[in-house]
């Protein structure tokens, strides 16, 4: 499989996804969260572009940014007052933020994420050996997204956060899959899945409001 000039940007790309996915776990403000998601897709694009032609790899970036824009539009477009699960009115601020993280929960998340990152760095050389076409930095980036996405999924029941976590996990998979399969149809379908998940996130946001954070 052909490797493009993006291989020299692999390390910055991996660091970018590491930083954004860790912050996504800890940050509560939805604006920052979605900004981080948008930045994360830049890292994903860089790592995918190592193996995929630039034009096809761009679908990741474009789909990711459109997905983020969809979520931003849905949240910012929701009315100031909404009804909670028990039909009680919720204040605008409560509706728009993702509340519930205490200091101890915040520390717990960061520590857990740090431990997972350590495990990823331990596992990465073995995985890179197992998939011959892949670079170490790609494996690190992909596994970080996969593992932190899964951690995020395990820690939340808020619909919007679930969708962000799923998008993160999916991005991790896409980096690995890009190294083993180049197909325009797959790229197209994965972009549709990304947009579909974002649409569902927007739908969840409009249809109802979140639940309790673990």
């Amino acid at each position: 499989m052909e490797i493009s000039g993006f291989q020299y940007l692999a390390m910055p790309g991996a660091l970018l996804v590491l930083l954004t996915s860790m912050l996504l776990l800890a940050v509560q403000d939805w604006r920052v969260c979605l900004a981080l998601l948008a930045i994360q897709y830049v890292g994903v694009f860089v790592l995918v572009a190592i193996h995929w032609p630039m034009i096809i790899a761009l679908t990741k970036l474009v789909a990711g940014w459109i997905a983020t824009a969809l979520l931003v539009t849905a949240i910012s477009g929701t009315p100031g007052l909404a009804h909670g699960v028990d039909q009680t009115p919720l204040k605008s601020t409560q509706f728009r933020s993702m509340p519930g993280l205490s200091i101890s929960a915040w520390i717990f998340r960061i520590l857990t994420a740090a431990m997972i990152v350590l495990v990823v760095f331990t596992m990465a050389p073995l995985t890179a050996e197992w998939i011959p076409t892949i670079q170490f930095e790609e494996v690190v980036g992909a596994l970080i997204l996969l593992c932190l996405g899964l951690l995020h999924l395990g820690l939340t029941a808020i619909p919007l956060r679930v969708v962000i976590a799923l998008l993160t996990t999916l991005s991790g998979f896409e980096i690995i899959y890009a190294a083993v399969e180049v197909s325009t149809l797959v790229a197209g379908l994965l972009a549709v899945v990304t947009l579909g998940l974002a649409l569902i996130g927007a739908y969840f946001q409009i249809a109802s409001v979140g639940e309790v954070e673990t």
Partner: protein
Amino acid sequence: MTSPLIWIVMPAIYAGILLVLRRWDRIVVVLGILVSLILAWFAWVAPIGDTIVIGPWRVSLDDTLTILGRRFVLSATDAPLLTLIYLGLAFWFGGSIVANASNLFVPIGLGIATLLTAAIAVEPFLYSALIIELVTIISIPLISPPNQPVGRGTLRYLTFQTLAMPLVLFTGWILTGVEAGPPDSVFVVHGNILLALGFAFMLAIFPFHTWVTMLAEETHPYVGAFIFYTFSLVITFFGISFLERYAWLRTSSGLYDLFRLVGILMVVVAGLWVAFQRHLGRMLGYAVLMETGLSLLVVSAGLAGEHLASSLSILFASILPRGLAFAVWALALSILLRAGNGSVTPAISLRLEGVQGKGRKMPLTIAALVMAMFSLAGFPLMAGFPIRLALWDTVAKVSTLAAIVALLGGVGVLTSGLRTLGILITGADDVPWMVSETRGEQVLILLGGMGLLLVGIFPQWFLPALAHLANIYLNIQP
């Protein structure tokens, strides 16, 4: 003209049109039934791969459509499957008239059928995992209607199905390596683990089964049953495609042992839990899980590929009785939901304490509900009985324990049926018996009940044709 254009692209466009017209829900249902029936009929008569002559015109009906370099193939051998899919769809749409399901049911249902047909047609077949994920995404508005809180079951369903897709897709790459490498390659272990995990997520196999019961409790019963049924059907086809494509997988005895173990576990857990549930929707959810377990048991009797074809025949023959029982069960629950105890949410309305004594006002509904439960339990004269008999016989030849477990699972559903019957007809003595279902409900419920009896008494009229569907998978034939 190509067959994927007729059975994938055109219904997809039509689903979009119905979505726009959804305000006129009755018209949309009728149009949906009409289109499904036309597609089913055309699949039955159309000479796929040949030329159609209509008066002075001659139209060649090719079986392949190429999109972005990949092929979607619906050949003449897929015609019975297409007939089954669209006939089944018309059947489910028919029930939705009185089930009072969301006005999105028909457009999204048609969209789901279209995507599932695409999942069957796409080559390489591994890309079906992506299409199944798209089915999950478009089914969300149906499961979690607007203006209602998003349930945890919905989130879990979305999460598990989304996690399944990468696992299955990546397995495809690993399996290619397995074929090229030595049989004891490390790829075999990795491939098997990822594949098992992927299908466990997709089919809600223990311990990833929780979303089924949660969803069955939260969502409209008719919508829930439709999703469970169609999903299990297509994922079964997808799983069989794996067995057909990879001979080493098909002939691996460890795989069948795994199927048996997981099947036993699922039937035991579901059979036990269904008997003690206090919510009619959750009972349906556990019945779905038990059916998945039974499907695994029957495939496990394939004995490393030697008798796989006969096992698959039983699996395919069970499509009709299973679908009929789920539809009647869900229809009865929908009628109970409509006549609920003041609450419109299924989570509250379908609790046993909420429906106590309802049998005196809705005897036809309750009779159909109990018949559907008995059918899934494999009670004699019901639609499920001939299939259960074949299943017990086939499974017992390989493992007596598995056959006993399959029997006990049925006892669990039977117990829950008797318990439901008892609670639903128990009420104050002065409450008179009366039929309070609407005319439409009476007609459909009676048709459903009669269908369950008819298939049970005359299985030879219906089941052999379905059993022959296994012939589609030519590589599996002995």
